[in-house]
């Protein structure tokens, strides 16, 4: 019975992604963040361009070390370099844009329209603070899991460690993912939004974890390919890694939208919910 309710809530949440079809403008923040990332990746990959090299050489050296100035290591290390830029970027700009998207999605939601809408600019700093906390709890366990997987011998044990790590990340994200919606609905400051978000997440934990896992699952094939960058460089053209990184960004536009649209759906059911 409980499983049925969980699955119903999960599918109800996912059905909220139709909002993007009715109002495509809610997609704009996701696309804008994707474009920003694509520009950064393209710039990092443009190291051999003589016009950009004077600026890019020190930047690439700082991000990837001396090996990143060599071919094909430059492309092999591209995902590592990008990740070093991505984490602060997603915690600040990314989360600000995604929170703006949440603002617009709630504005267009039947239940969300019923209450007064606080101004987004007044909560920009709160959105960034939530972003920093969200990124830290996502990246922290992720780093720990990566270290653990390296310590465990390859085989079933390593697969189990990866799965366990993914579950931990999914749970951590599920607890924090409602905070931007709380900001919009209640107009509170970041710490209160996080507290209320966690409290609400515990009520709808099952469907939320399923949504987060769906998103992680959608990203996993490209993430796996990017993690295999040295092998790809050896067997194919190293530039393939750049194309994979671009594909990952494109996929993130979709998955981030699916995550936040579903979370809005889970937060604003007809009865109960965050009001």
């Amino acid at each position, binding site marked *: 019975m409980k499983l049925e309710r969980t699955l119903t809530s999960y599918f109800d949440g996912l059905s909220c992604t139709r909002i993007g079809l009715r109002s495509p403008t809610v997609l704009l923040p996701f696309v804008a963040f994707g474009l920003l990332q694509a520009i950064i990746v393209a710039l990092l990959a443009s*190291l*051999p361009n*003589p016009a950009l*090299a*004077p*600026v890019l*050489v*020190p*930047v690439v050296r700082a991000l990837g070390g001396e090996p990143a*100035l*060599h*071919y*094909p290591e*430059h492309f092999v290390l591209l995902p590592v370099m990008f990740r070093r830029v991505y984490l602060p970027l997603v915690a600040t700009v990314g989360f600000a844009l995604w929170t703006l998207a949440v603002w617009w999605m709630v504005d267009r939601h039947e239940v969300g329209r019923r209450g007064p809408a606080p101004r987004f600019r007044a909560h920009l700093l709160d959105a960034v603070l939530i972003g920093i906390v969200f990124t830290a709890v996502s990246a922290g366990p992720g780093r720990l899991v990566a270290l653990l997987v390296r310590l465990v011998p390859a085989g079933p044990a390593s697969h189990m460690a990866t799965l366990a790590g993914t579950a931990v990340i999914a749970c951590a994200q599920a607890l924090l993912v409602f905070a931007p919606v709380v900001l919009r609905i209640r107009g509170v400051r970041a710490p209160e939004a996080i507290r209320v978000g966690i409290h609400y997440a515990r009520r709808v934990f099952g469907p939320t974890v399923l949504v987060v896992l769906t998103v992680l699952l959608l990203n996993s094939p490209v993430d796996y390919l990017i993690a295999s960058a040295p092998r790809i460089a050896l067997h194919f*053209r*190293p530039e393939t890694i750049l194309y994979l990184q671009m594909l990952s960004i494109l996929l993130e536009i979709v998955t981030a939208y699916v995550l936040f649209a579903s979370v809005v759906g889970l937060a604003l059911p007809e009865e109960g919910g965050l009001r």
Partner: protein
Amino acid sequence: MRRSFAAVVLFVPLVASCAPVDGVLTRYRLERELWRAQFYERRINIAFARASSPDIRRAIDAFQRLLADDPLSTPAAAAWNPDVVSDIRQLRVSAQIGLANLYFLSDRYSEAGTLYSRTVESGSLSLHRAMDARLGAARSLYLAGETSAVMEQCAAIFHQLLETPDFWGHDSAVNEDFLNVPVALVRMYVENGDSARANEYARLAAVFYARLASERPKTRLGWQARLGAIQLHLVRREWNAAVDAVDSVLADPSQQAGAPDGLMLLAAEIHGFALDDTSRAYRALGEVIHRFAGTGSASAARYDIGTLRAAHGDPEGATLMFRAVESDPNAEPAIAARATVSHAAILERQGDWDGAFTLLKRVQLLYPYTDAAIDAPMAITRHYARMGETQLARRSLDRARDYYLSLLDKASQFAGDRSAVQTAMVESYVAAGRAADVAELLGSGRPGWDETSVAAGMLRSADVYTTVLHDSTQACAVLKKCVERFPKTQYSKMAERRLDELEGRSD
């Protein structure tokens, strides 16, 4: 005001850290070009047995483009970071070696040899890389027919081994192939009739092997050095010294110079065939049979005893031994086939042609890819020709021709010496009085043969025209065809030398 301050704070450190990056970019560009060239090279290596010619061409073009561009010769290079300059130099060396390997793979031996030599002369190679490049140069120049250049490279390798402290350091791990270079060098000088150089290098080689054996006793390198010293004695025909050296190695139960049965067999063969000391040979061969019963070496020892007995007028004793080898399941196919053919020769001499014929046919049937089987059709044709049985000689020659052509075919499983097949074919035809036919057959360059067989066939055809048919015009025509078809190879060099001799003689 606040915004412009932020801009200054952000951008000044960034701009200040922007050092000149020309060297880094040039290195990056060369690395990318080298990677692309090596990408084709990797594809060629994956499909080595059937390397695709478009890939070889693409890889050669890519390496050539890379080497045509020498950024270090530009004035700007003087200001580059020394690490970047060193990297660029190593990239060019890698490209040179890669291109030389590809030239070698595409039979452009002369260009390969020149490039390997140039790479070594550039002086920026480690000991191992320099030695590998020199070995590549020696192999290429040998195949390009540049005999004197091969000897120069081998001499350079040898001197490098002698004089490089890295090599004598205890942690150096030099490819054991290089230890064969001194003895190969002496052999080449001996074969070229340059006794002064042969003596000089033999002395140096003996000192080299002795030093290596004493400085690295009980190591693999040390044992290889002792084996090299034995080979040196054999090349110099110092038979007693060779036997002493073998005995001294065998006296050490922990020796790793070679398998003890092989070394004992070698010593016994030196006694029997080189020193003509049959009693010591029989004793030594008997010991091999006793100590290594049921092995291939015991069979080889029995074959040697049979051969010695046949040579010393004891056909019955020889037959006993040959029969024992024929029926020994542990005998190597080459030894069993050789024993059968030797047994057949005894039967033929005793007038039992039917028995001999049966054995010769059996060899072809049981061991078709051995040297002895190659001799069998020749022995049959020669017998009928000698007996004046023209019809039978022609028929056996036709069968021999089919058999030899099947061995020479590119798709054949035969992995032995195709040149020996051509020799046997020539001898069969000459014995049957049809030298013109074999000269024409070998000179035609049959499409089903590999390039080496075609080239060797043309040279052999010219030999038949010159020595058997006394037709220097035809010989010159075949040699010219060989030069045109295999330019800048050892074959064209040999053909040119023979053309010079023939034309000089006609002048």
